[in-house]
C-alpha cells in the first residue's frame, strides 16, 4: 500500500555503498547484504551472473515488498538486487527495513528473503575461473 515507503531497484553489476533509509519514528533498522562467495560447490568462483525478466521481476519484487510492509507493519523498506555480473566479494543484494521494534524487522527480513528465493524471477549462474590461466 504506502508505496512511497517502498523502493525496489534492479542495479546493473554490483551494488554500491548503502545510503541511509530515512524513517521517522523507527526504533529498529535492519540491513541485509548478500555477497557473492568466492567458492560454489567447492570450486573457486569468479563471479555470479544474475538474470532478470523485466518488467515481471521488478513488479513481483514490488508486490512482495508491499505484502511484507503490510504484514509486518514496517515503516519503510528498500530492495536492491543486481543483474548481470557480480564478482566474488561484492554485494549482489541489499534489503533494508525500518520498523518500530526489532521483532518486526527480523521477521520481515527473514520472510522476504525466503519468499524472494521461492517466487521471484531472478536467476544466477556461476562464472568459474578459466582453467587455462
Amino acid at each position, binding site marked *: 500500500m504506502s508505496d512511497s515507503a517502498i523502493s525496489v531497484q534492479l542495479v546493473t553489476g554490483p551494488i554500491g555503498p548503502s545510503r541511509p533509509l530515512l524513517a521517522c519514528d523507527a526504533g529498529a533498522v535492519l540491513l541485509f547484504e548478500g555477497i557473492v562467495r568466492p567458492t560454489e560447490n567447492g570450486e573457486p568462483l569468479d563471479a555470479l551472473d544474475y538474470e532478470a*525478466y523485466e518488467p515481471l521481476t521488478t513488479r513481483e519484487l514490488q508486490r512482495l515488498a508491499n505484502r511484507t510492509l503490510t504484514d509486518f507493519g514496517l515503516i519503510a523498506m528498500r530492495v536492491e538486487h543486481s543483474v548481470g555480473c557480480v564478482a566474488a566479494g561484492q554485494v549482489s543484494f541489499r534489503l533494508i527495513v525500518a520498523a518500530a521494534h526489532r521483532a518486526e524487522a527480523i521477521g520481515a527480513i527473514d520472510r522476504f528473503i525466503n519468499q524472494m*528465493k*521461492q517466487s521471484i*524471477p*531472478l*536467476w544466477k549462474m556461476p562464472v568459474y575461473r578459466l582453467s587455462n590461466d
Partner: protein
Amino acid sequence: MVVQVLLFGPQARLVGSPSLPVEILEDRITAARVLATLAESVPQLAASLPASRLAVNHEFAESHTPIKPGDEVALIGMVSGG
C-alpha cells in the same frame, strides 16, 4: 500453433537457447498444455519443470490460463540457490 517460450538462467543454458518453439496442434491452448508439451519433448527440462511456472504477458499463469497468438510466454524455473 507454435508458441515461442522464453527461457532464462540455468534452463536456457541446459537447452542452449534463450527461447524454444513449442508446436501444439490444438485450438485452445492453456499454460498447462504448454508445460506438458515441454515435459514430453525437451528432456533437458524434465528435472526442473516440476518447480517451474509459466508467465503469460508478464503475469504468472494458472494452469487454465489461455495462450493466444502474440502472447509473450516465459518459463520461470525456480532453481534458485541459497
